């Protein structure tokens, strides 16, 4: 066997073992190892993901939401920002197509919309359905995945980027609403890249996270649902940077 043939053999061998090496070198080797979907493997995987994803005290991210709902005649694209301050504060600001803000805490949700310009507060303790919805979202966005295994069966769909599908168990309270939830993580595994919610009713919602910054200081103003009017009075336009291409959007101050 000459040198060329030997090199070819080495190359073929390397190509053969490449998937194994990738699995070993990857942080989520179990997921790639064929039968990585056994309950104990999934729990171990979730624990690792949770440790990585939930390792933040504050988070700011932009999002694009695509909604295919039975009630809408067309697909709706929603753009906005999410601010999370652990343990129990999520501010959800919708910038398009209408201005709408929600602050979610462990006990109440406070919401405002530009149309009515009124702040409405709803106690979660008196509204069990709403509360369940909010608890679910909080769990997904805050990275508490291990506790979700009590309600969902998880399957690894893809490993690069890591995508896991969660299907409600028969015993789960949400089985009448949720069909499945697919979560795709960023390459570095530190936060979500995409979440796809499929509902029993046929509705689906996809959320894409962009410009996510972990542990950045968050101004208290970001958790106010009603924006200050002063800025709008001074400036005819509000300028913000969003999107991976740093495209500049200009909005009317009103």
């Amino acid at each position: 066997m000459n040198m060329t043939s030997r090199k070819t053999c080495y190359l073929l061998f390397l190509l053969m073992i490449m998937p194994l090496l990738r699995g070993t070198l990857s942080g989520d080797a179990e997921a790639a190892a064929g039968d990585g979907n056994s309950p104990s493997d999934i729990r171990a995987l979730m624990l690792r993901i949770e440790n990585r994803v939930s390792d933040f005290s504050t988070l700011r991210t932009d999002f694009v939401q695509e909604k295919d709902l039975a009630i809408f005649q067309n697909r709706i694209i929603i753009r906005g920002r999410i601010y999370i301050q652990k343990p129990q504060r999520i501010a959800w600001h919708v910038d398009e197509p209408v201005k709408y803000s929600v602050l979610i805490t462990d006990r109440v949700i406070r919401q405002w919309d530009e149309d009515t310009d009124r702040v409405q507060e709803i106690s979660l303790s008196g509204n069990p359905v709403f509360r369940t919805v909010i608890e679910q979202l909080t769990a997904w966005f805050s990275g508490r995945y291990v506790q979700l295994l009590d309600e969902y069966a998880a399957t690894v769909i893809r490993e690069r980027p890591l995508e896991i599908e969660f299907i409600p168990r028969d015993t789960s309270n949400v089985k009448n609403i949720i069909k499945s939830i697919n979560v795709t993580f960023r390459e570095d595994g530190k936060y979500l890249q995409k979440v796809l919610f499929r509902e029993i009713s046929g509705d689906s919602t996809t959320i894409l996270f962009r410009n996510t910054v972990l542990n950045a200081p968050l101004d208290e103003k970001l958790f106010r649902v009603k924006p200050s009017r002063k800025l709008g009075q001074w400036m005819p336009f509000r300028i913000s940077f969003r999107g991976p291409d740093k495209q500049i959007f200009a909005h009317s101050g009103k």
Partner: protein
Amino acid sequence: MNELFFSDYFPQIATEEDIRKIDEMITGRYVSERMKTIYRRLLGPQGILGASMFYADPLGINLLMMERLKTQSASLGYQVNVEDGHFISADGRHTMIIAHTSVPVTDSAGSKKLIGALKEKLDMLPPYISADIVSGHLHTLSNEKVIKRDIRLTIGIAAAGFMLLFLLVFRDIRAVLVFLIPAASVVLSMNISNLMIGSLSYWVAGLGTVIAGISVDYGIHVFVAVRNSGNASKVIGHVARPIMLGAVTTAGIFAAFFFSDIEGYHQLALFSIISIFLSLLLALTILPQFLSKGQWLFVRKEAGEGRDRGPRTRAVIITTVWALLLIAALTGSFRVKFDSDVVKLDGSEREVFQAEENFHETWGGKDAGGILVVSGGSYEEALEKNDRIFRQVKQQAWGDGFRSFSELWPSLKTRNENAVRWNEFWRGGKEEELRRLIRESTLKYGLRDAAFTPFFRRLYIQTPLKGGDGGEFISAMKERFVQRDRDMYRVLSFFPDERGYIDKLSGVAGSHEGTFIVSRKALSRAISETLAAEMKLFAMIATIFIVLLTLLFLKDLKKTLLALVPVITNVLVLLGIMSLFGISLNIANLIAGIVAMGLCIDYGIFMTYRYEHDLKRSAVLAVTISAVTTLIGAGVLLFARHPALFSIGLTLVIGVLAGYVSSVVVIPALEKIFSSPAGSE
């Protein structure tokens, strides 16, 4: 989760009022507003998983149901959520564990063991978790601790006071015997009582110094009389009668407590009577043996014979002032109120109350309402009766605060009626109208009216209903409202615990068999009425007993009336002072007031009796020392931290002081007025 959707329940529980509210929603303006709201909400996080909630309820009928749930939850007076089988506070930072125990709250030893075991468990908690115990057993232990400390303190002060008084006044070592008689009697009595009725409660034991202060009188009378005459055997014959009478009247007063149903009163009566008779026995038998031996350093001779000297005018002035004082006291006495709240006599330490305060701050329940209980032989029978009462109460102008299970889950009969009404409402053209309005409004917002198919698909409910228990959600509510005791079902309703409300509700509930009211205020009122009735009975028995015995002993109406002067003065001055300082009557000071009556009659009898047997000055001295010893015994209770002991001490001090002053000042003055003609001075 799906169970919470109104369509599962609401058609069955919707009243005519609810149908009217829904009817008001079916307008172009309301439906349009509602579509706009739904559109906005769907853009927010609620729209991710909550869209189906809107499809099933385009009008927001769920809110009617939620409002009802909210008021039901508030009616219990507690802010508690049940999460994963745990009681969780509204702030989400506290959890509560309710423990059942077979240890009665009155069992002191058991309470000690129980609380000790709980504290041992709590000590194992990590430092960042704090825990409070809230239990009646803690009150038992804490009261016991406070009273024990009070007993140690008061015994010490009283013993020092008695010894000092005897040694200073009598200047004779034999005076120590006078002190030892009640001390020995009280100790013996405690042991005898323990043998007879088990163990004495601590508050009864806490009155030991008072009983000693009372029973020391017999020894004092014997001692003073013997010292003044120098002849023990001769004097005993004279003083034995009034001393025995005094003991019998005082014991008789305590005996009146046997008529009560309260065990604590029985203990007090037994302990006191044994102490009194033991003291009497020792004073009349053992004490003279010691007094007849040895020499008296000095024997006091009576200063004069006959009536007390002094101008008649002074007697008239004294009597007038006394009469005016009593009239003023009598006027004020009508304002004194009876406070039945036994909680105010709870002397538990601050930590115990603080733990309860913390509990109420977190969980509410401080103003927990009253409960109306409706009973029935079967579940449906109880529910039907509950429905009738609910409808009856709701028709009243005052019925707003009444929270009934009937609002959430009425009987099958009522639910059938509701379901039929619901179906008729929608079949009467409202379904078509709503469909049209939704169609018109959705067009404006780029929405599809077909999305609300789940609502229209489940709009009608099949009648007649087949029964059923209402599923998981109603079952959870049922745990709060329905209790089963063998073959008996009890349905609970909640209402504001106010006197006026209770009276009105009693009127409604009274016409339904098997219903009753459980109310803290009503219970307190019932206790108050029972106690007040008992106290009236005691006071009456004590008064009759005192008057009859005094009359029997003195065999003279005028002398009997004179002897009663300290008793009347004691009662009226006590009530007058209480009125002046806004002090209410309570169980503790009522007991003390009745006991003070028994002591004051002794002073009256002695002062009236004194002329018959050459005991004038010795009687005054004996009465004075008796009063002072009682004042010491009762006065030390003013140092007690326990409110019941303090209250008893205060009442006895005021009552005995008033009785004593009237016996040594007013009785001689009245005697002078009655015995000498006007202008004889």
